[in-house]
């Protein structure tokens, strides 16, 4: 099977799976627009992060800064120009691209842990600035919000001023961007983002990035100037983060500084590692898993647990609910932490590695059953 046929096949299946999420996630109780939007948006964030971390091995600990810059840019575009989401997205991606070029240019002077620290420092700097000095732009602690009195120059120009009570809402040429339409909009963009990431991975440029991860010094003696390669990867992944930030603002038009905090940067690292660094689908699996846990597990409370364990004898219910209760509700981070540790220790390649091992096990069993050797599928390049 050639790579191109493979790509087409992957895209068809991927598109179907993503667009049908509202249906097949019903049994998991995850089929509501808010959560689905988060899957798609953080999916974009993680795909972009993986272009940097997965391909080149450079671990950025400050990607949330670009998420924040994307959100702020988008909200400002809503305030100043129009409630249509297209200009907001374009401006957000450009702005985060510019910031990524600046931060990347400085940070990429170092490798390894020093690079990570530099990116972390930049992100924390952005976070603190957003809270203090930049309050006129970011509206500090309150967060940047829409107001009825915003100029919205473009909207006013075309006479689209029919303002009802309350705040205007984001639209795609009249289509409201909340609920399921918001999800489908984000999902289509995510599918497109995934396609671009896949093309990059399968390109000579992507191969060069992987070679940098493998042996950067050798790349120099092979005649490559590795710095611009790294910077390009950094800017692309920063733009992905900006796009995700813009979509966060599209589905809920406000931007706060906490979006740039280091915990947000850490979360995307966690998602990528949990799913499988450097794989196409891994980061997305990580996103779905973490966002699912965050939303579902954290909503479990004492009463719900008592109901679930009501089949147990009465004496046992209280202690069991007490122990399990530690891992859900407010304590869902405990579950996440345990899961993360188990995966890193036993499956360093993430969930994707686990799936690969399962497939191999099943295949081996089938082979011994059939006593015939299946043809080896060989990866072409």
């Amino acid at each position, binding site marked *: 099977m050639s790579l191109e046929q493979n790509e087409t096949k992957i895209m068809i299946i991927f598109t179907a799976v993503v667009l049908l999420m509202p249906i097949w996630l019903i049994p998991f109780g995850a089929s509501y627009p808010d959560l689905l939007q988060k899957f798609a948006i953080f999916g974009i964030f993680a795909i972009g992060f993986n272009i940097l971390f997965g391909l080149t091995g450079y671990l950025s600990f400050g990607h949330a800064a670009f998420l924040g810059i994307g959100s702020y840019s988008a909200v400002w575009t809503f305030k100043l120009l129009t409630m249509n989401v297209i200009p907001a997205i374009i401006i957000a991606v450009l702005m985060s691209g510019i910031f990524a070029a600046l931060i990347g240019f400085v940070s990429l002077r170092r490798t390894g842990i020093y690079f990570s620290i530099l990116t972390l420092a930049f992100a924390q700097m952005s976070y603190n600035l957003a809270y203090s000095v930049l309050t006129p732009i970011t509206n500090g602690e309150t967060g940047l919000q829409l107001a009825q009195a915003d100029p919205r120059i473009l909207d006013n120009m075309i006479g689209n001023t029919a303002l009802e009570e309350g705040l205007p809402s984001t639209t795609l040429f009249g289509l409201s961007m909340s609920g399921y339409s918001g999800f489908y909009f984000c999902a289509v963009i995510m599918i497109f983002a995934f396609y671009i990431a896949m093309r990059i991975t399968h390109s*000579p440029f992507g191969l060069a990035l992987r070679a940098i991860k493998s042996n950067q010094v050798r790349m120099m003696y092979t005649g*490559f*100037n590795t710095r611009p390669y790294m910077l390009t990867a950094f800017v692309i992944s920063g733009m992905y983060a900006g796009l995700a930030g813009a979509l966060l603002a599209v589905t809920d038009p406000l931007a706060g500084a906490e979006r740039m905090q280091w915990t947000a940067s850490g979360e995307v690292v966690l998602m990528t590692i949990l799913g499988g660094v450097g794989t196409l689908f891994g980061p997305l699996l990580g996103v779905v898993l973490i966002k699912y846990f965050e939303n579902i597990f954290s909503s479990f409370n004492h009463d719900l647990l008592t109901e679930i364990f009501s089949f147990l004898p009465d004496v046992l219910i209280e202690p069991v609910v007490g122990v399990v209760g530690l891992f859900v509700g407010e304590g869902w981070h405990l579950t996440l932490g345990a899961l993360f540790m188990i995966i890193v220790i036993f499956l360093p390649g993430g969930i994707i590695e686990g799936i690969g091992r399962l497939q191999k096990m099943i295949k081996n069993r089938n082979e011994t059953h059939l006593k015939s050797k299946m043809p080896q599928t*060989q990866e072409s390049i």
Partner: protein
Amino acid sequence: MSKKILDVQGVNKSFGGLKALNEVVFDAVEGETHAIIGPNGAGKSTFLNVCIGKLIPDTGTVMFDGQLMTGKQPHEINQAGIVRVFQTPEIFQDLTILQNVMISAFSKRDGEYRFNAFTSMLSENKLRQEAESILEDLNMESMLHDHAGSLSRGDKRRLELAMSLIQKPKLLLLDEPTAGMSRIDTNRTIELLSKIKQKGITKIIIEHDMHVVFSLADRISVLAQGHVIATGLPDEIRKSPKVKEAYLGGESHA
């Protein structure tokens, strides 16, 4: 006499108090195989490191193909046409053998940077065929999709040679290409290197094994204590009293 492709003048390099290279004067003529021999610690590897830009000499110049190489970045020197095969194989362990060779081919075709993120590797048929044919020459065509990290040391060396050859270097630097090889592998390597010689690639080769040196070299230079003490045809070097002294005299030689 044909044109000097590499011309090194008065190169000095010190590490602290140690003078690793002392007024080194060296040249390589287009198409020749020039061997550098000398006792351990004579500065042979340091000299190659200066040639490829890994080290910057304290004084002196390296001219290559009419251009000044001193102070240039390693990738610029590679793009100019000087390619080195390392003593301990330097390859991309996580990539397949074919990918290793393809990467070198891209460097030759695309230069030091090119943003070709939307062309598929599959449309690179021409380079791929070139890579496959070079690997075939080295009897590695059966392992195209193996991971380079899983190769034996000898195979890694052959892979590195393939990576160098696809770049069609003007000057190939070989650092002890047969070190640690069995006699059979050594002879195979000699055969391979003489094949490359027929293609007219200029080579500088560092080697301890005199059998290899005298079967391949057109000229030999002898380095001792960072200084070139003699340069000449193999027969002249064999008879030179100075060389005998450097190897057998005061120096302790393993």
